[in-house]
């Protein structure tokens, strides 16, 4: 046994095979989701529509459906899904808390209030329109996560239930404030609902362009910190004794996760539980090495979000179900099972 094992020295680092498979699956699902909808699109029309779209010469209704409706929606859902999965995986790692997730921590609601304020006052204060929206969402999200951390921290630890409780309570207050802001700015009730429960119905290439650099930035920051996230799992003391600047990395990672959340919320509203379900599934399958866990969660988060959005827009077509309803229907029971498993460990 010992001899046969010599050849099989375990390899550390990123595991490329599952990442490659997930990337291919994501491309496949993106393609499928482009074809499915109220108007069926023949696969052969997609490449020409993309070409026409890129060259700015859309010809005919199919081109418009593919280039201006389906594709931006699919791409935006992918970006938002990967951003939320990144946030979830990172928060779970930093707080050593399997239930941490942008929605359950209240961070998504904080970002939502910031975005709603920017929407409401954008016409009065020009600075708030355009790039001001994600900026304000980010500022509010950062303030929220700081508050939740302060409320929940006990010494050097963030006890699982304190963190989730603080996040849930703060989150519902912030959601109430968001509703108020939107009502006061005479937003229609359906618009508010779409915002609070998330929707990709208003997807556009502009939104894709707005959110893409933020998601890339957050992904780069966490990619730099894969090994650090692993060390943080040992607790602050052991991580420091293995040479990690604990406080610096914790700050960096919380900022990255919060940036990803704010980016997602500012284009799609508040979509819960994606950051909980996806990283958990990945951790169950491939273990806790964050150098694989984070990028794989991003790919599968994108895939999950496109699939959920597909359900959201086809289930009771021509009407749409807010996508947050779909993710909560899946994620709620998932959360409860995890909570049950944490008993005695909190």
């Amino acid at each position: 046994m010992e001899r046969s094992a010599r050849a099989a020295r375990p390899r550390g680092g990123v595991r490329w095979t599952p990442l490659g498979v997930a990337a291919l699956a994501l491309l496949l699902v993106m393609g499928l989701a482009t074809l499915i909808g109220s108007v069926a699109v023949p696969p052969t029309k997609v490449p020409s529509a993309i070409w026409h779209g890129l060259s700015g010469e859309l010809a005919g209704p199919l081109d418009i459906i593919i280039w201006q409706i389906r594709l931006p929606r699919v791409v935006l859902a992918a970006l938002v899904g990967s951003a939320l999965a990144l946030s979830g995986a990172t928060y779970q790692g930093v707080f050593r808390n399997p239930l941490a997730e942008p929605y359950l921590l209240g961070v998504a609601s904080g970002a939502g209030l910031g975005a709603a304020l920017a929407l409401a006052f954008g016409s009065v204060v020009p600075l708030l329109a355009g790039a001001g929206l994600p900026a304000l969402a980010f500022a509010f999200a950062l303030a929220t996560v700081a508050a939740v951390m302060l409320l929940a921290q006990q010494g050097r630890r963030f006890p699982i239930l304190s963190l989730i409780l603080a996040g849930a309570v703060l989150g519902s207050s912030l959601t109430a404030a968001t509703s108020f802001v939107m009502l006061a700015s005479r937003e229609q009730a359906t618009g508010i609902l779409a915002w609070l429960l998330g929707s990709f119905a208003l997807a556009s290439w502009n939104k894709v362009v707005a959110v893409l650099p933020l998601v890339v930035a957050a992904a780069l920051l966490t990619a730099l910190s894969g090994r650090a996230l692993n060390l943080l799992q040992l607790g602050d003391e052991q991580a420091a004794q293995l040479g990690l600047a604990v406080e610096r990395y914790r700050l960096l990672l919380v900022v990255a996760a919060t940036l990803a959340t704010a980016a997602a919320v500012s284009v799609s509203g508040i979509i819960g539980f994606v950051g909980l379900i996806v990283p958990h599934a990945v951790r169950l399958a491939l273990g806790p090495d964050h150098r694989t866990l984070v990028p794989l969660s991003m790919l599968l988060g994108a895939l999950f979000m496109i699939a959920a959005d597909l359900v959201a827009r086809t289930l009771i077509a021509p009407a749409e179900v807010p996508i947050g309803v779909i993710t909560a229907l899946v994620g709620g029971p998932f959360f409860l099972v995890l909570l049950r498993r944490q008993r005695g460990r909190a």
Partner: protein
Amino acid sequence: MIEVRGLEFGYGREPVLRGLDFAVRRGEVTVLAGPNGAGKSTVIRLLTRVLVPEAGSVRIDGTPVAQIGRRQLARTLAVVPQGADLPSGFRGHEMVSMGRAPHLRLLEPERPLDAEVVERVMRHTDTWRFRNTPVEALSGGEKQRLLMARALAQEPACLLLDEPTSHLDLRYQIELLRFTRREVERGGAALVVLHDLNLAARIADRILLLHQGRLVSEGPPQDVLTAGIIRTVYGADVDVFTGEFDDAPVVLPRLR
């Protein structure tokens, strides 16, 4: 190797260390002993800069620890913690590979050299067979050996063991102390926090006896472990015998 001068520290208002002086030398196993709450584990946290002293200095080969970068410090001092609580899911080799972190820059992937070191220390500590075992499936003794392997993977100049034997059966206690002895014979240094005086007598070249945040006695086991000193420090009456095979004293409580 390590020089400590006038170390003072307290948690809140409660002073734990009140002016502690000692040295850890290469080629020696130094044991830090003393009653519960004497501040033994605090010393390890201060040496590794997890805590910052209120007064006094810690120098490593002449350089104050405050001026040594975290990663470099982790290449010099490696801690074997009390290993009951490890994050689940990581496999044996992943846990030991973390000991290579201080040798790697930010984005540097693990090199073939790192994999070699990990395999070498795992074979040496007989943990190679756990390389694909999730750590939560290991027994207390096996975890402790894995943590010893992780510390060795840091290739430190000095090992710091924090009550390494407290959860262990006799066989594992001996094993762990034997690894420590071997590192010291190769020119390293070791500081072992122990509360078992008989074990301390066997392993130590020098014992530092800590009481109420001060060093009350220092020297080879037979000088430190006398009935008089133990009565002062522990408030207990003991008989001290000299062992059969070496000079290590044997401490037995008197129950009358």
